[in-house]
């Protein structure tokens, strides 16, 4: 990883927000952030904390309320629109709809700041466009019509357009929104590669905390009320900054797995044994239903997976009680059981038990 010590982007006591009827509405203040070249930075935080506002302030689409933004050491106020277009490119959430334009033509629009009065593409422009196409592996799509692409492909094309703009800083506003998980991963991996290979600074806002923690070199965490926190993902997790910013009544952040888990309100019923894949998924299913899936001896029912029979077995006092071929059936039974009254309601399991006994005999 090549990385110069110079910050490509730096903010000094920056305060962002809107001006409405001469009244300033401040969304974030006292922001002192730094980004080096070659770094992929994820801007995360709950909805409405000003992620987009911050990005739009960086791109000079919005005026900041106070403080300063330094792009490559110089205040963005000193850049004219032409210079800015050569130093900073953007990828937005708003959809682009241009009929009759090929992917290549659209990427070539990124060369706009460099082309002549009529927008004529020269050899160097063509080179940069091809480079962007290659970096994002868009060769097979190059001559396709842009609007016929899938959302993920379109997003990649717009990133390629930003890349063709050949700027040391790229800003992306939620580039992974509306994408399926593999596409999200792919896009972030591409961006990381670009940041490292081309030595450009990349800032992207995202809701995908888990992805950000996995892929980012640097995280800027904008919490709702507290001060902004910056650092590498792992440090922020250990400091508890992540769980503090995102946990609420419904979800809490699990430090071990870096997943959000639902806060569990229901009672414990099952003592789940084993760590096979089937058991892990059973646990997930139970968590989804708000049922604790811990391993505690004190619980009345024991569950495990019989890999020979390919069945989930429920035991009570070391006696096989029921067997299930799918998790769905277990959930149905458990949901129909009143947990505080399980002794009486074990009758619900009896049918299953009989089935199991019958099959054992055959």
């Amino acid at each position: 990883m090549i990385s110069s010590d110079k910050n490509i982007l730096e903010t000094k006591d920056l305060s962002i927000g809107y001006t409405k009827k001469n009244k300033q509405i401040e969304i974030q203040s006292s922001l002192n952030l730094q980004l080096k070249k070659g770094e992929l930075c994820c801007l995360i935080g709950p909805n409405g904390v000003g992620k987009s506002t911050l990005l739009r302030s960086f791109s000079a689409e919005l005026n900041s309320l106070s403080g300063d933004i330094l792009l490559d050491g110089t205040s963005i106020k000193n850049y004219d629109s032409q210079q800015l277009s050569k130093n900073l490119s953007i990828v937005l959430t708003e959809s682009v709809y241009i009929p009759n334009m090929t992917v290549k033509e659209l990427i070539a629009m990124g060369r706009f700041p460099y082309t002549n009065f009529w927008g004529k593409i020269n050899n160097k422009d063509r080179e940069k466009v091809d480079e962007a196409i290659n970096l994002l592996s868009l060769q097979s799509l190059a001559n396709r019509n842009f609007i016929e692409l899938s959302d993920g492909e379109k997003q990649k094309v717009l990133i390629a357009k930003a890349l063709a703009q050949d700027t040391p800083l790229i800003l992306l506003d939620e580039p992974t929104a509306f994408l399926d998980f593999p596409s999200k991963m792919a896009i972030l991996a591409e961006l990381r590669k670009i940041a490292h290979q081309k030595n450009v600074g990349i800032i992207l806002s995202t809701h995908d905390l888990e992805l950000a923690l996995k892929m980012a070199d640097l995280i800027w965490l904008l919490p709702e009320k507290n001060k902004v926190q910056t650092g590498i993902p792992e440090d922020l997790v250990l400091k508890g900054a992540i769980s503090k910013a995102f946990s609420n009544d419904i979800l809490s952040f699990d430090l071990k797995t870096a997943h959000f888990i639902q806060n569990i309100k229901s009672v414990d019923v099952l003592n789940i044994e084993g760590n096979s894949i089937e058991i892990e998924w059973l646990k997930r299913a139970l968590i989804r239903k708000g049922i604790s899936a811990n391993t505690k001896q004190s619980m009345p029912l024991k569950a495990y997976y019989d890999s020979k029979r390919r069945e989930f077995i429920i035991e009570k006092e070391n006696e096989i009680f029921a067997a299930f071929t799918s998790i769905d059936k277990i959930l149905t039974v458990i949901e129909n059981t009143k947990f505080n009254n399980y002794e009486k309601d074990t009758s619900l399991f009896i049918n299953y038990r009989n089935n199991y006994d019958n099959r054992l005999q055959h």
Partner: protein
Amino acid sequence: MSDRNQSIRFIYIILSIFLLGLIFLNLAIGSVSVPSAVFLHFFDTNTPENEIVWRHIILESRMPQAVTAILAGSSLGLAGLQMQTLFRNPLAGPSILGISSGASLGVALLTLGSGIGTGFIGSNILNELGVHLAAFIGAFLVLFIVLLAAKKVKNNASLLIIGIMVGYAVSSIIGLLNFVGQQGEVHAFVIWGLGSFANVQNSQLVLFIILVFPALFLSSLLIKPMNAMLLGESYAQNLGVNLKRVRWQLILLSGYLTAIITAFTGPIAFIGLATPHLARLLFKSSDHKQLIPAVLLLGTIISLACNLLARMPFFQDVLPINVITSLFGAPLVIYLIIKRKQIGF
């Protein structure tokens, strides 16, 4: 790419043949049938005595009509394209900002308000000039208001709504004038509102051309920023486009062209809205380098074709141009859009 270039060249050749044919037919066909011999001797120095009348019809009536149609079609097509690109809206057209309504108001005030209106079309040149001037003033007044709003309002969608509202407000005044106007005046105003390419005399043609051409030329200088605008305002700005300036330039040029054309021909429906769509469908491009020449050519062809249809001998009279543009044009565009399934701005 060369395949595409070739097909584009082919389309241009076909359209040029169409254009030449239409120009000839516009001169040759009309309510008076001119013998073909007149055309054979047309460029002879000595005109036979008996052909003078026909020559006169061609030179003094049909020729200015054809030129007016050419100017109107190309300008309105371009103005429509400018509005559609600026507002990124396929429904935008030259009249969307209320400029042609402004022209109508000017004419309504003249014909309905002052009482000099009845029978003004055709015979009296002074009256005709008066109508042109009134339309001109009305259109520019609205254009001025819209440009002021464009300075104030940042958002294009808001500006679009303001333009439409100005149009409504102006139309309601016209409605009032219609309500209080004399029957004959109202009829004359309605006729003007249906549009005509026949109201420009040879003597006014030079002025017409001088007024239109600089705007056509200046419009071609905006190809690059217009292409960037296709991406949306934020992207365009990020590419270094001075949004405010380009927006102002586009409104000014489009509004100016619409104002001039409406002043000379009355409000022409449909051509400005439909021509850019036809251009995109035909040339399969959103690149303004392609689209600007395309709308100029197609707009010309459409308006010449409409002018020709309006004067077909089997119609008892010369039909108003708007009857033709919308009646024949709308189904054609609907057909093309359904067939190609793609529409944009």
